[in-house]
């Protein structure tokens, strides 16, 4: 059976915990052996783990990069060692495409775009929004922000971003920041949270302040997020499934290991919009 190495950025966040669950299930299904390493959010550690995987001569390496730039030298090393690489979950910089077999996973930029489209639609192209960012420097935080801000500028120039602060993926921090914002800006029309946790944190604070007519949009479709959409606390989110994410990466890795030809370079998992109307069709996965 082929051996597939996987290096993860950090298993202490719920999304990746769910990812690993799906990964193990898929491995059983395909009958492949896997080595799972956790970089604990340290890019240097991830580089070492890449070396460990190269040394143990796995058939394919699946990389979920802690830092999509810092991983590049390691990708090159693996490429030079003749090991095909599937990038998963976070797409490395363009300059690294030549070292990759393919990318399989969500499109963080596109998620930001979708959130912006939903926001523009909900606010009818006009209003004041605030943004709760993820931890500075992390891939989703960088690209979701980019996707959101660029799209808003393009499609709804009358929407103004009043403030944008990192909440480090922590709900407590999101709640605190939002509590302060509702005082400073009594007329916030919309909130964009880089993920559902932050969005729900903001919704809590808004609710506590007695604000009801506010459009809060998250990303991810976590259990908390979907529940909040159902109850109307969140206007909407888009669902990024860790199960799909892991399965897709596994599927491509197994295909490569079995010597099959890969046609495309980008394989994106679907990121369906979730709103009150369709929320019942989705099951939370993290």
């Amino acid at each position, binding site marked *: 059976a082929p051996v597939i190495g996987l290096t993860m950025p950090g298993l202490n966040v719920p999304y990746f915990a769910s990812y690993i669950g799906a990964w193990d299930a898929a491995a059983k299904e395909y009958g492949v052996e896997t080595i799972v390493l956790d970089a604990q959010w340290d890019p240097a550690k991830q580089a070492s783990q890449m070396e460990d995987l190269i040394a143990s001569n796995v058939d394919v390496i699946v990389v979920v990069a802690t830092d999509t730039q810092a991983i590049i030298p390691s990708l090159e090393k693996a490429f030079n060692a003749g090991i095909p690489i599937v990038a998963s979950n976070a797409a490395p910089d363009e300059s690294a495409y030549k070292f990759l077999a393919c990318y399989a996973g969500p499109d963080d930029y596109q998620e930001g775009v979708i959130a912006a489209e939903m926001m523009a639609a909900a606010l009818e192209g006009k209003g004041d929004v605030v943004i709760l960012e993820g931890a500075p420097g992390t891939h989703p935080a960088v690209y979701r922000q980019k996707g959101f801000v660029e799209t808003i500028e393009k499609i709804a120039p009358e929407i103004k971003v009043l403030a944008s602060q990192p909440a480090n993926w922590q709900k407590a921090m999101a*709640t605190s920041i939002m509590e*302060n914002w509702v*005082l*400073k800006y009594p007329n916030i029309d919309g909130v964009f949270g880089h993920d559902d*946790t932050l969005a729900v944190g903001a919704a809590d604070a808004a609710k506590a302040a007695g604000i009801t007519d506010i459009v809060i949009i998250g990303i991810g479709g976590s259990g908390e997020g979907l529940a909040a959409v159902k109850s109307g606390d969140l206007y909407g989110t888009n669902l990024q499934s860790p199960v799909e994410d892991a399965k897709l990466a596994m599927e491509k890795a197994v295909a490569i290991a079995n010597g099959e030809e890969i046609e495309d370079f980008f394989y994106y998992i679907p990121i369906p919009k979730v709103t009150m109307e369709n929320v019942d069709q989705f099951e939370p996965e993290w």
Partner: protein
Amino acid sequence: MIQTTYQETKKTTGLRILMDILKRHGIFVALIALFIVGSLISDVFLSPRNIFNILRQSSIVGIMAIGMTFVLIGGDIDLSVGSTLSLCMVLAIGLQQQGLALSILIVLIVGILAGLLNGLLVGLFKANAFIVTLGTMSIVQAIALIYSKGYHMLGDPESAFSIIGRGMIGPVPIPVIIFIAFSIVFHIILNNSKFGYSVYATGGNAKAAWASGIHTGLTKLLAFALTGFTAAVGALVMSSRLASAQPSAGQGYELDVIAAVILGGISLLGGRGSILRTVVGALFFAVFSNLMILLNVAYPFQLVIKGAIIICAVWADIIGRRALQQ
């Protein structure tokens, strides 16, 4: 004879007393200064709702800092409180099915046990507190992850449990009431109980305290257990407020908590400090973060200013005290 000359040279006018207080408590002055600056540059800053916001936001770090005060005065340090916060949070949410009273009880017991473990290692086995609590920090965080399997624990925001973090008595949020109550109770314990005296003595000179018949090991044990307890209470407040728990939610809290205590003016070498000062330290950070958000300062610059202010506030405190001695 010497005393009398001292008293003669000291005129006790009202102004002088005021100056004395200001010099002795530079950190209070710094806090007041922050308040004045805040009210000048932001019109919502002094609104009652914002004040309660600040109090609520300071309450979790504040409650935990109260426990940490005992450990630091006793001459030790506890780096594991952040992990204890994480573990107790996932437990508080995860055990909600077991009924309110039982889940709260278990959370408190787990917090105390985590503290007792530290206390046992530091107080009775006499291990270096810094490394040992770094070790338990890793252990307790791992247990939180294993228990939650890394998943986000979701609670029911409508349950009775959420009163702890979300409820109000009149206009006052319950976390603030807990914070104030803890401050008063533990102020009394620190200043007027045998345990409090022993903590000071142990921090002042553990050998001498031992030779005076104080059980220094037991004192340390209790101080750590207390820190575990306050971390558990902090976790109850936080998880109830958020109605959910991320398994690594407490990461980094240890430094916030220790910083709040030290900003209040406790010497890391032990033997000095008070709950009041700790409370001021915790408030200081909350006021600061609040202001930064109200002013919409970009995150990187928030950090730069925060770093500078930490240093300057303590500096002001030191200069005041030195001026007092002249």
